[in-house]
């Protein structure tokens, strides 16, 4: 394991830091991470208020060729700072996005009307929330309502779907699509009752709330794992929290076990296509799309599995973009103090996307889609939506005797 002492100050992390690029108040990952770490003492009160300007995109850690855990050092410094100082109201609010989502979807039409009204947005501004982006819309028919199990009970592949808050409360349609797709490829799929992964709480400096969420999920997931299930995630930030933060930051005893049994949904689909269902036919999709890689998919280090599936889809032209952070970084960009940073980064990413003149934007992350949909004006899609659309077209050619995907 390498630590801050292995940093050779090469500045590769700085070259990759989106916040440093647009906000001079943030000294960059090298100084905020390994450099400052030399002066941080457990018993001493933190004074580095700028440490909270880091958005935890983790690009620094991916870039570091020496394996220094740059963003983890910064995260721990953020948690220490927040523990010792008063957190702003917005931080408390966003640490609890799960509860907001739960309430929001219960009262969906009212919530959506209220959050989009001019008066509410004024109040939000006063409370330290950014008001440039529209708030995500909640759906009453959330993923924890409706069918929670699908696929043959005796199927050899059993998966438990950790969908996270965004698919759960805001885009349950995508979640159901993934459930049906996996079942169609021969899996037994379970959508268990689950809470927030804990990342918003970590990002907003509340270790205790994060632990509370994580422990609940961990108990539930381990029960499934012990019964031969694999955990599958679609949201790359939830995924990174499960495989990295559960064992390393939150130090859960079950963390290792969960990390070893957790898969990205496209990693699993690619495997199913290679091994279980090689005769599946993809229909033509006439699209030229930009595929924006979320920072946390990069940080997972598993490559870009959805891109491997896109290669199989005839007619689909994809340009991969993985050099820019969208700037929203979950709840980061929804806070007033980060609004400018998020706006600038959103504009930079949108510029790079628009030069390619795509007809749609694909991204694995709901927050990236929200932000970049806003700044590019393009239709935004989850990779699974593209895959499902292609398979539905392929399935309609059933007369050729190929396997059918529901």
């Amino acid at each position, binding site marked *: 394991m390498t630590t801050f002492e292995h940093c050779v100050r*090469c*500045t*590769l992390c*700085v*070259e*990759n830091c989106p916040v*440093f*690029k*647009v906000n*001079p108040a943030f000294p*960059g990952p090298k100084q905020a991470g390994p450099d400052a770490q030399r002066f941080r003492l457990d018993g001493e009160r933190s004074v580095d208020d700028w440490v909270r300007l880091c958005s935890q995109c983790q690009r620094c*850690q*991916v*870039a*570091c*060729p*020496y*394996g220094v855990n740059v963003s983890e050092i910064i995260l721990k410094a953020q948690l220490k700072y927040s523990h010792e100082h008063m957190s702003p109201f917005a931080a408390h609010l966003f640490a609890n996005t799960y509860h907001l989502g739960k309430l929001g979807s219960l009262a969906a039409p009212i919530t959506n009307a209220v959050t989009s009204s001019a008066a509410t947005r004024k109040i939000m501004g006063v409370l330290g929330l950014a008001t440039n982006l529209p708030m995500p819309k909640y759906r009453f028919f959330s993923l924890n309502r409706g069918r929670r199990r699908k696929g043959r009970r005796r199927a050899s592949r059993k998966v438990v779907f950790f969908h996270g808050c965004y698919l759960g409360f805001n885009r349950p349609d995508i979640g159901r699509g993934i459930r049906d797709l996996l079942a169609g490829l021969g899996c037994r799929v379970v959508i268990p009752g689950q809470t927030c992964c804990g990342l918003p709480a970590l990002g907003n400096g509340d270790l205790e709330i994060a632990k509370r969420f994580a422990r609940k999920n961990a108990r539930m997931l381990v029960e499934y794992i012990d019964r031969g299930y694999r955990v599958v995630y679609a949201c790359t930030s939830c995924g*990174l929290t*499960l*495989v*990295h933060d559960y*064992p390393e930051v939150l130090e859960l005893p079950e963390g290792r076990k*969960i*990390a*070893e*049994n*957790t*898969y990205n949904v496209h*990693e*699993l689909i*690619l*495997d199913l296509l*290679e*091994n279980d269902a090689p005769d599946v036919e993809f229909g033509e999709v006439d699209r030229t799309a930009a595929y924006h890689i979320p920072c946390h998919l*990069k*940080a*997972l*280090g*598993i*490559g*870009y599995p959805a*891109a*491997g599936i896109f*290669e199989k889809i005839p007619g689909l032209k994809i*340009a*991969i973009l*993985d*050099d820019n952070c969208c700037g929203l970084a979950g709840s980061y960009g929804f806070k007033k103090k980060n609004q400018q940073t998020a706006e600038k980064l959103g*504009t*930079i990413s949108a*510029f*790079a996307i628009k030069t390619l003149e795509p007809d749609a934007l694909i991204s694995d992350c709901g927050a990236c889609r929200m932000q970049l949909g806003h700044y590019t004006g393009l239709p935004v899609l989850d990779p699974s939506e593209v895959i499902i659309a292609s398979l539905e077209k392929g399935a309609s050619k059933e007369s050729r005797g190929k396997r059918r995907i529901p």
Partner: protein
Amino acid sequence: MSAYEYDAVVIGGGVSGIMASLTLASEGFKTALVSRGDPVCCLSTGCIDVFSHSDKPLGGIRALLPDHPYSLVGEKGIVDALCFFLEIMNEAGLPYEGDPGRNRKILTPIGSVKNTCLVPQSMAHADMPPGEYFHVISFQGIKDFFPSYLTSRHRNSTYSVYDAGVPTTLGIAARFDDATFLDAFITWLRGLEIPHDRVALPAVLGTIDPASAMEKISRAVGRKVFEIPTLPPSVPGLRLFRALKRVMQNRGIHLYWGKEVTSVERQGHTIEAVTLATTGRAKRVQGRAFVLATGSFVSGGLFAGRDSVRETVFDLPVAVPGERKDWFNTDFFSAGHSIERAGVRVDRSFRPAGAKIDNLFACGSILAECEIMSFQCGHGLAVATGVAAAKSCAQGLS
């Protein structure tokens, strides 16, 4: 989970690894590239030094000892590889120019001149005839760029300073991507009424493509404009890396980034797979052939212990020049510490000598006897051996 099998797996994301994977992909092989982080190329000037120790790169290479890796590629191979690089950069939208027969001069931030072979178009006008006047533009608070250094060394030069609102090279470069910022800068620049022949700026003219900003500036002031590479973090180095990465992704090469290779599966004389230290659960990457391009000491391809040098992925035999006491000169700044010659020896097909592995090829600065610091040939050697090793690998595959 069983892994997908690639035709070729390249280990190392620097210039040599990237050029190797592009060569393999262009011959139709399904290629993956794994890298444990961003390459040192991001910190470089972005120029391709082929052999900067003399004015004529190919002439200098001819005079090298026969065990230098360049001699395995041959003159034609080197020129072909550099042409392939130029083609790739055109495709990437970051055109380079230069001639392998002749080095050109670029200006450095301390006012010295440096030999190099291929340069991005933004540095094309840096090679000035003696006696030409130039005006340097610097930016308020910018680190490690002192225009008075430049002007003290060049009597025919002057400078002015612009306030970009941010002091860092990356920050300023990001601002130049924005058309309104560029227009404001141009208005200011016109106001200076520069009488000189050329205008020089630190390399901050945009993060992706400096060409359009340069052309706009050049047209507005009616002068030739060029960039001066800066100390790291280096914008032209980052542009080079990202442009190459874009082409790799366009050509369907799969990238596995940010995780190192922790173990290797070997069956007799064949490498079957490597395992990456992916977060949570290791990832196995399977291939029919492997290319090793992990670089030298600074990139972690080689590791020096007290008395020995180790190759870090396959534990290949490493040629080391003598004992530790012979590795370094007493004068640090003198050219040529003999430790630079340490590395992996390869046969004519770029297979590591003495390793008894049939499907492994090595390229770049991990090769023994390359002495890239003494000869100043880092990126040129990376391009030439990257392409050559990949061609040999392609032959082995088919």
